[in-house]
């Protein structure tokens, strides 16, 4: 670990206890959504479109309704009408189509029956008639002048002049430095312009979406589900059903991976509607095939970037034209691409135009630092080209241009204290940086950035009669956050970390908490925990003062006990357990809450170094060594910080080398299984050396920066740069699969040898 600034010494923060939910997860006892069963439960199955683009002319459910075991059938007609312009129109018509289906796999009806087999048979018996429409499957098709328009209401936001006709472009985002771009590029000694294409990829969480909904005859429902945010499940489900939030209670099950893909909903409103109609609990579990076809891919892109650089390596101008496909509905890809493309470097003159484009594929969902890995792929491989062209070391080029505290971001605000330079230095000083390479090997360097977010969080701390504590938060634990909450609470209260039980509370057990996204749980929910604990300490001092017969100002809280500091002789310190034991006599139960809108999520930077070995006969690329630095601000539980970095690397390597959605000419996905959609397995990867850099975030009481996302940003360009250094081939289209690498090597003269 690299500690770059002196930091306070902590007793618990920065240690590596066994996570509190670990035992359940290594013994098979942890309850994920698909593990739950309710008395009298039915099984729900979704009817999905076989067409990528079609108008629904009729749905006949009569035969399905008459089949054995069938208790309820629903279609879009069972939900309140929703019109374009509604705040969550896209989400609503994505969960269940109304007049049109917009991608293969689009849900349009659902069936509940006594057994899953019966429900499947009935789903197959739902008769749907379609008017098949021409499918728009690529960015070029979507932007063609005569392209079929997916949404008749889609007028481009941000168009200049304003759009007069509907199109497949929901948004255009523009950012610029406001300077003279021609003059900026005129200052450059080298101008390079490159284009890149990338395909949609899936988050690939191992647990398919699942839920159980139990709707009572009183019109209230309870949902057990796996999600990144159960308050969002509640509000989105309520919106779809036209219900008040208070009719819905959502109890979070353990979540088997999300990576952004479980920040939205798919099944829950269907399960509730089926359950309401049948008067029974309904369980719904997606198959992997459904997960691939109907949930979450990250956008595909076409990117064009022009950079102007002076001969000493100073970046002087950047022009980016970014197109993101968010699938069948508007999405944030373009905006996020625009916010990240030039963010890591000082570029005085820049212009960015980013388009979102809709096509007839599944609606995209967030995937770990959404949009940023692709802008990094373009920028970081171009920086390598610049370095080669100018004869400057790739590391020196980045150090020369890296943003630091006070530099303006793309959006104009100055960066607070950030650790980009420290991450670069950590990799430069690592033995890997100068280690010799073997034959057919190459080394790639790349950096990445993610801004992180704050949002709303709540926490409640309850002290138990024996002096132990329960910490309840509203953030689903997606990769160890219970442990980090317990560590921060232990530090604040002075209670042993194993005497704290961190609990994820349901929507009726804890205050509102936003989705676990934007790397916010340990940052923002951690702040709420700290706030609750600090209130608790004030309360504990007051209770102790009563017990001591002292004034509260004469009592300090030191290492888990109240210490008298007044002048009225010696008084024995009171440990937390002693105060808890007397709580009934000093004012009742000891409980405190923290709730806040967190600001100042510190941006996270990462720098990766990757060695690959390329087989010039097959085009197969093997990652043989990998080192990744990342600024965590302060690592609350270093093992899980390392885990986030390592997991991001693995996903990024898969994105770089193998993963892509493949569609046939009708828009039917051709690789909806883990056999044909190849994610990295253990034998594809080496050990991943994670270097935690700690440049504390001034906005967090312990200096935390979110770490969940940045790690996926640098791997694609790190791999691409390594392939170049092994082969002399620049590959500007993803994935860099064996076929594509072999084509590049062949075009380059037939063998390795940069």
């Amino acid at each position, binding site marked *: 670990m690299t500690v770059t600034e002196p930091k306070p010494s902590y007793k618990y923060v920065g240690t*590596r206890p*066994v*996570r509190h*939910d*670990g*035992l*359940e*997860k*290594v*013994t*098979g*006892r*942890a*309850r*994920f959504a*698909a*593990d739950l*069963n309710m008395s009298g439960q039915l099984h729900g199955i979704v009817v999905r479109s076989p067409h990528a683009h079609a108008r629904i002319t009729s749905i006949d459910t009569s035969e399905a309704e008459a089949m054995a075991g069938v208790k309820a059938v629903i279609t879009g007609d069972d939900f309140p009408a929703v019109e374009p312009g509604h705040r969550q129109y896209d989400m609503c018509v994505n969960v269940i189509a109304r007049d049109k289906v917009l991608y293969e796999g689009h849900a349009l009806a659902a069936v509940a029956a006594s057994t899953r*087999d019966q429900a499947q048979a009935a789903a197959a018996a739902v008769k749907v008639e379609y008017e098949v429409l021409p499918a728009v499957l690529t960015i070029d098709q979507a932007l063609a002048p005569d392209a079929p328009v997916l949404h008749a209401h889609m007028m481009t936001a941000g168009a200049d002049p304003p759009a007069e006709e509907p199109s497949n472009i929901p948004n255009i985002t523009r950012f610029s430095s406001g300077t003279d771009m021609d003059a900026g590029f005129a200052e450059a000694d080298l101008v390079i312009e490159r284009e890149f294409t990338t395909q949609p990829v899936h*988050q*690939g*969480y*191992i*647990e*398919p979406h699942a839920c159980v909904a139990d709707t009572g005859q009183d019109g209230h429902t309870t949902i057990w589900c796996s999600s990144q945010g159960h308050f969002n499940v509640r509000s989105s489900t309520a919106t779809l059903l036209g219900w008040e939030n208070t009719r819905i209670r959502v109890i979070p099950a*353990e*979540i*088997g*991976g*999300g*990576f952004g893909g479980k920040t939205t909903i798919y099944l829950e409103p269907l399960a509730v509607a089926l359950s309401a109609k049948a008067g029974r609990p309904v369980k719904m*579990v997606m*198959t*992997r095939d459904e997960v691939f076809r109907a949930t979450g891919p990250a956008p595909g892109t076409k990117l064009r970037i022009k950079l102007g650089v002076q001969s000493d390596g100073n970046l002087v101008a950047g022009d980016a034209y970014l197109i993101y496909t968010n699938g069948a509905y508007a999405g944030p890809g373009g905006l996020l691409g625009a916010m990240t493309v030039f963010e890591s470097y000082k570029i005085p003159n820049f212009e960015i135009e980013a388009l979102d484009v809709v096509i007839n594929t599944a609606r995209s969902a967030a995937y770990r630092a959404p949009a940023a890995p692709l802008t990094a792929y373009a920028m970081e491989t171009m920086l390598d080209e610049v370095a080669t062209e100018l004869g400057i070391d790739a590391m020196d080029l980045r150090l020369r241009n890296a943003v630091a505290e006070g530099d303006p971001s793309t959006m104009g605000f100055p960066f607070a204290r950030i650790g980009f330079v420290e991450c670069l230095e950590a990799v430069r000083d690592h033995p890997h940086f100068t280690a010799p390479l073997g034959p057919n090997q190459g080394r790639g360097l790349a950096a990445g950035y993610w801004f992180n977010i704050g949002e709303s969080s709540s926490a409640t701390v309850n002290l138990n009669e024996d002096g132990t504590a329960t910490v309840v938060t509203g953030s689903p634990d*997606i*990769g*160890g956050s219970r442990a980090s909450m317990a560590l921060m609470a232990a530090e604040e209260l002075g209670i042993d970390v194993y005497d704290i039980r961190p609990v994820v509370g349901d929507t009726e057990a804890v205050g509102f908490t936003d989705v676990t996204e934007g790397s916010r749980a340990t940052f923002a929910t951690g702040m709420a925990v700290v706030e609750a604990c600090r209130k608790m300490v004030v309360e504990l001092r007051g209770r102790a003062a009563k017990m001591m017969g002292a004034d509260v100002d004469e009592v300090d809280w030191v290492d888990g006990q109240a210490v008298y500091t007044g002048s009225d002789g010696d008084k024995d310190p009171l440990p937390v357990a002693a105060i808890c034991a007397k709580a009934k006599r000093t004012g009742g139960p000891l409980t405190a809450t923290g709730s806040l809108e967190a600001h100042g999520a510190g941006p996270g930077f990462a720098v990766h170094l990757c060695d690959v070995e390329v087989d010039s006969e097959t085009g197969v690329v093997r990652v043989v060594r990998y080192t990744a630095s990342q600024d965590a601000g302060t690592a609350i*539980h270093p*093992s*899980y910080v*390392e*885990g986030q970095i*390592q*997991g*991001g*690397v*693995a*996903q990024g390597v898969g994105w770089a080398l193998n993963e892509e959605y493949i569609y046939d000419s009708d828009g039917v996905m051709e690789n909806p*299984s*883990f*056999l044909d959609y190849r*994610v*990295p*397995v*253990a*034998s594809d*990867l080496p*050990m*991943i050396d*994670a270097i935690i850099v700690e440049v504390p975030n001034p906005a967090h009481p312990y200096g935390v920066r979110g770490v969940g996302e940045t790690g996926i940003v640098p791997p694609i360009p790190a791999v691409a740069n390594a392939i170049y250094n092994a082969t002399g081939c620049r590959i500007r289209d993803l994935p860099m699969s064996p076929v594509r690498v072999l084509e590049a090597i062949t075009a380059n003269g037939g063998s390795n040898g940069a």
Partner: protein
Amino acid sequence: MSRVHVTCTINGDPAEFLCDGGQTLLDALRDEVGLTGAKEGCGTGDCGACSVVMDGRLLCSCLVLAPEAEGTTISTVEGMASGDDLHPLQQCFLEGAALQCGVCTPGFLVAAKALLDRNPDPDETEIRYGLAGNLCRCTGYDKIVRAVQAAAAAINES
């Protein structure tokens, strides 16, 4: 269709259940026997989350028909700990932070135990190939491989 009566041994105990002829062993374990440790990540034998050992052979229970379990001996993740004592693999996964979301963990533990049962001292490459039938999307495998190395060392020392 009449249901099939299956008698077998699960985690050392005699067990019997009724299943449909076309039901998978995974579904039977989860829905008929009530052992939900094995997970369905794909249903096509590609992710290993449903790994169990049947008559000494590591397999994906989603690819086995439940009636095939007749007369067999099956081990699942629920049978790894004995009484108060976790299996060294379970202990090393905990201490080494070798799980994040935890949904693949039961499959990895069963597969890793099968690996160590046939090769008590695997090198890193053997561990990586031995676990290549199990997908983890959270960890990048680093800490899983290290946990298996640590468990092998602990078992060999004891």
